[in-house]
């Protein structure tokens, strides 16, 4: 057990990051359980504590009598320095136990730029970084979350991965562990991995061999153990009303990033935006029923005392019974001063009316995502939104009194030309002028936030080369110069980070060496602007003799084997190819939620189906 002296806690920023004892945190007798699971997100406490997936798994695991699940996050740099100086190992926030005493250490992998922190945490925990160096007594290092659909760049650091939704699978993993342990740990570490590899949705990277062609490019990956499947499909929850949802989240004492109730309405989004990895990763759409959500909302308000609730999903406004559900919530919480918010708005007047109703008086600002500046390019990405849609939506918003609009765009999308870039400025200016037209005065702020496009695995754009940094920066300047209206404010992302993300997200196993090198040379908290060390990363690529551009800038052949195809969310290569072709022709694809099936392959390969209470004709 680790006990931090007052002088340590007095010396660091926000010491409550490390002191635990939060309401609803679960404390169990260490020796009274069979399985000890540490759950982590390799970022600072306030970020880690905001993750919904971890909150769910924490409860699922702790609901088992034979298991204890405890939390651990990345110590901030000030604390890390002290821990390294005094040889204090990484510890959990419940029992303050050293992390290397746990049976499992699970990481939620939210984005690629977190990988250096994963390595840093393993090191702080005294767990060997490379799986091949781990001993029988070391925890199994497990990864799950959004980036598992290309785990190759980190596959040498993880004992296994959980693909897709983890609520059911993590229980199967623990069952397997408990049985293996009771049977005297047959076959040791590898024996357990062989057992767990049999479960649907588990990927054990060390059970595969990767072949490269004579140009050094990825050629194939093949199982070398009998238990390893050639292709691993993700897991999905088939009935969202029957799976456990958070009821008593751990309540932080200090402010965290998402310091409110998160009520998850549904999973999946099939709008079919061709750049979007979430859109292919979380298919199919599966809604929770209105009645169940109503129960959950009550439980969560009672167990937390929060007065804010966010109705979360990939596109919450698409929830089939949203209007009715918001009425339910208003009725149930009248007089309790609970406010509700929708994190994502659709570009239409239904969304505006709803946002108006939910925000009542406070008009904080509306956010829309047209993603591209011209209709041509919006059709390429299958955004399915027209300029007219946007104008109608903002007009409604301005009439209701909003004065701030934020518009999200991407830069560097396939087929993008300078005309599309200038189009972003023109669209934003039209929105600003619409305000004048509606209200007769100036005083609106239109903020455009433009990110750099990173082609992602298992999307129709997975073959495309990413723009080089200089080209991103030229287009950023072009856009900046194209904005004439003072009402339009321009924010853009650091192209340097996107370029690295581009290389890692479509990397193969050889990228592990680069990540390791970068971490050794001081990379950590890469997602934090002021801590990001661009040069360290580029130097790491050079030291490893790996050309970054081969991974991010190179356009892949359409029939080239790709290093991530054996770990799949279930969308077929044929579907992605069709979508690629349609993108090039500027053709749209319907949302299968209520429209025609686009034959993406997910439902048949996973044995799942769309659950949408409008489409199914029923009431929630």
């Amino acid at each position, binding site marked *: 057990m680790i006990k931090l*002296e*007052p*002088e340590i*806690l*007095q010396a660091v920023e926000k*010491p*409550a990051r490390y*002191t*635990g*004892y*939060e*309401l609803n945190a679960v404390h169990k007798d260490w020796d009274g359980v069979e399985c000890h699971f540490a759950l982590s997100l390799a970022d600072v406490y306030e970020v880690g504590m905001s993750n919904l997936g971890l909150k769910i798994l924490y409860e699922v695991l702790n609901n088992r009598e034979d298991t204890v699940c405890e939390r651990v996050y990345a110590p901030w740099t000030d604390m890390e320095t002290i821990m390294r100086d005094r040889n204090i190992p990484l510890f959990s926030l419940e029992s303050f136990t050293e992390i290397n005493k746990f049976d499992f250490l699970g990481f939620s992998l939210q984005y690629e730029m977190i990988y250096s922190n994963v390595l840093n945490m393993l090191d702080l925990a005294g767990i060997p970084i490379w799986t091949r160096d781990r001993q029988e007594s070391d925890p199994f290092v497990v990864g799950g979350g959004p980036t598992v659909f290309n785990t190759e760049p980190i596959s040498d650091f993880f004992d296994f991965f959980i693909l897709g939704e983890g609520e059911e699978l993590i229980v199967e993993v623990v069952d397997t562990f408990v049985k293996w342990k009771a049977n005297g740990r047959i076959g040791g570490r590898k024996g357990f991995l062989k057992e767990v590899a049999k479960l649907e949705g588990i990927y054990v990277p060390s059970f595969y061999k990767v072949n490269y062609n004579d140009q050094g490019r990825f050629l194939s990956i093949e199982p070398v153990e009998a238990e390893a499947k050639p292709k691993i499909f993700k897991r999905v929850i088939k009935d969202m009303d029957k799976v456990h949802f958070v009821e008593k989240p751990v*309540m932080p*004492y*200090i*402010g965290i990033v998402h310091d409110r109730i998160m009520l998850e309405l549904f999973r999946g989004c099939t709008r079919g935006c061709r750049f979007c990895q979430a859109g292919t990763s979380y298919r199919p759409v599966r809604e929770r029923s209105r009645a169940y959500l109503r129960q959950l909302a009550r439980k969560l*308000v*009672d*167990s*937390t*005392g*929060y*007065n804010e609730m966010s109705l979360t999903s990939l596109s919450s406004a698409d929830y089939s019974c949203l209007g009715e559900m918001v009425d339910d919530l208003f009725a149930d919480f009248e007089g*309790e*001063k609970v406010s509700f918010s929708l994190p994502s708005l659709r570009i239409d007047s239904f969304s505006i009316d709803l946002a108006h109703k939910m925000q009542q*008086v*406070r008009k904080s600002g509306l956010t829309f995502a047209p993603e591209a500046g011209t209709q041509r390019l919006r059709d390429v990405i299958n955004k399915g939104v027209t300029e007219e849609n946007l104008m109608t939506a903002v007009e409604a918003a301005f009439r209701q009194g909003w004065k701030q609009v934020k518009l999200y765009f991407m830069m560097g999308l396939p087929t993008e030309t300078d005309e599309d870039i200038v189009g972003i400025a023109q669209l934003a200016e039209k929105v600003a002028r619409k305000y004048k037209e509606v209200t007769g005065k100036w005083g609106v702020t239109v903020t455009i936030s433009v990110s750099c496009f990173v082609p992602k695995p298992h999307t129709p754009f997975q073959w495309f080369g990413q723009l080089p940094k200089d080209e991103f920066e030229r287009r950023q300047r072009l856009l900046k110069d194209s904005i004439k209206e003072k009402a339009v404010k321009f924010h853009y992302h650091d192209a340097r980070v996107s370029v690295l993300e581009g290389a890692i997200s479509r990397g193969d196993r050889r990228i592990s060496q680069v990540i390791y090198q970068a971490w050794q040379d001081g990379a950590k908290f890469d997602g934090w602007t002021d801590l990001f060390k661009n040069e360290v990363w580029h130097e790491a690529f050079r030291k490893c003799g790996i050309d970054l551009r081969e991974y991010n800038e190179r356009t892949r052949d359409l029939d080239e084997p790709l290093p991530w195809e054996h770990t799949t969310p279930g969308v077929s290569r044929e579907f992605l190819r069709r979508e690629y072709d349609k993108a090039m022709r500027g053709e749209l694809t319907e949302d299968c939620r209520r429209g025609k099936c686009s034959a993406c392959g997910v439902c048949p390969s996973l044995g799942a189906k769309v659950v949408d209470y409008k489409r199914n004709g029923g009431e929630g």
Partner: protein
Amino acid sequence: MYKYRAQLTKGDEIRYISHLDYAGVMERAIRRAKLPAAYSEGFNPHLKMSFASPLSLGVTSDAEYMDFELTRPLCQPEVFDKLSKALPPGIKLMKLKPVKEPKACQGKKHKALMAEVEQGIYEILVPLMGDWDAVVKAVKSFNAVSEINYHRVTPKKTRDIEVKQYVLEPVQAGMAGALVKLSMNIAITQSGSIKPVEIMELMVKEFGLPVDMGKAMINRSQLLGQGKPLIDLV
């Protein structure tokens, strides 16, 4: 509106949360307790609650005070039980009293809780790093001086504060097991105060108090107004 005053603790588990965070924790606790809490008007309604003197980060307390308002009068045991059950680890409800507001014809309303605070009593437990005699000597010398400045450095400004104006009684020293126990009675005024840790620092640096400051545990045991615990003022 029906006002109540609560005496709460800030335990070891949460000694490192700020005053503002403590207030947020209490706001959520009142909401979990399902008390008919009164809210401020406006676009962004807040629970009507106020606190006495803020506690420094790292200091525990047996005497945190909070006033809050309900829209209906509930009997003391009901409020006490509901609120107690809703508190997180590290906070206990010690006492609770309804605040009796005098009728309009009887004179002034209660002062704001913050304005009622006049003195705080603190104990510091800190490992001894030398002779007990040196402790006695350091405390005696500190108590003997009539004035002494503390050089306070904050990120915003640096200034010298005369300490003795805030020290209401001589600092007492004793042994508690292997630890030195220092007791302090400190004035808290509208224009300022001194922190117990600052007094200890001065005693170490200026008077040779042989203790390991980095391991000091500080607790506020009482908060007084007109010589009485704040809970007894209502």
